[in-house]
């Protein structure tokens, strides 16, 4: 039990996928303009991350490895992630059409979010158990959603601030993300995987 808790903290804070491992930077910049959109994006990505890591683990250990097809895992994982994204889009358009409209183009882009594939591949390299793999995916999703919401909140405030002209827009957003990343380095050593 402690181990699972440690996995969540390690994936969410210590080895935060966005700010420490620099995976998934495209949605970080693209979907952090508004807090509502960022929270929704975090939830959608979280759903994809968790289902995709569970499914990838099952497919790899129950199908690929018994047949000696470990070398196919990359393409199989991409297939699974694509399906998980489509599933999320279906659920979202049914249960929250407004969020579906707000996120729009960014939902299919979750498929190309390297953090999703990264989690599946890291799980397989570290040969975690199914439960540990799911928790690692959930932790990664938690960290991603946290960073996305933090940055969105900061960017909403920055819009009102008197920023020197050369830094306006994406420049100040990237600088903010860099400073956030420095802050997350403070977690180094809290938990080890």
């Amino acid at each position, binding site marked *: 039990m402690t181990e699972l808790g440690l996995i969540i903290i390690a994936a969410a804070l210590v080895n935060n996928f966005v700010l420490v491992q620099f995976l998934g930077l495209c949605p970080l910049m693209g979907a952090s303009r508004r807090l509502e959109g960022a929270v929704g994006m975090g939830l959608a990505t979280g759903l994809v991350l968790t289902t995709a890591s569970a499914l990838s683990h099952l*497919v790899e250990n129950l*199908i*690929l490895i018994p*047949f000696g*097809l470990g070398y*196919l895992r990359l*393409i*199989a994982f991409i*297939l*699974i992630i*694509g*399906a998980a994204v*489509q*599933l999320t889009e*279906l*659920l979202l358009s*049914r249960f929250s*059409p*407004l969020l579906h*409209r707000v996120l729009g183009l960014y939902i299919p882009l979750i498929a190309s979010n390297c953090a999703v594939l990264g989690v599946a591949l890291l799980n397989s390299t570290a040969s975690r158990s199914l439960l540990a793999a799911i928790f690692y995916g959930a932790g990664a999703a938690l960290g991603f959603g946290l960073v996305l919401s933090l940055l969105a909140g900061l960017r909403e405030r920055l*819009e*009102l601030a008197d920023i020197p002209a050369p830094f306006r827009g994406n420049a100040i957003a990237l600088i903010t993300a860099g400073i956030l990343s420095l802050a997350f380095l403070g977690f180094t050593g809290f938990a080890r995987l």
Partner: protein
Amino acid sequence: MLTGIIILVGLATGLSALLVIVARLLGGSNSSAADAIENLLPRIQCAQCGYPGCRPYAEAIASNSADINRCPPGGAETIRALAELLGRDPMPLDDSLGQASMQKSALIEESICIGCNRCAEVCPVDAIAGVPQRMHTIITSHCTGCELCLPPCPVDCISMVSRSA
């Protein structure tokens, strides 16, 4: 080699079958009716009908769980078109939802406005003119009185005023 191909094809087929099943389970059967209804609504997503947007309202009408008189911006014209499409009797607009359309319009207190632009982003009919960091103003002839711009304003400088005033 052959096993690899077979397994990948099987995996893809299995996943797409799963998606098709989920889509069937979730997708309402009356989506074409909802499409037709949505086309008659103003589609400005003002949410005055009590649904989060025009599409959910259209679906509610299509599944017979909402009356056709809940759209203030559309007014009598929309109700007549909907009644014709659905073969229902036209009815007067539901007053409890506010006869907001064309009765009231938003007014920005320009000395208080800080130019944060949030009201302009939520306005469904682009009736708010102004750029970030400058004060904004309402184009009264475009405003439908939907009050969507009130909650985002950080300094509460928007009020609803009667149009005749």
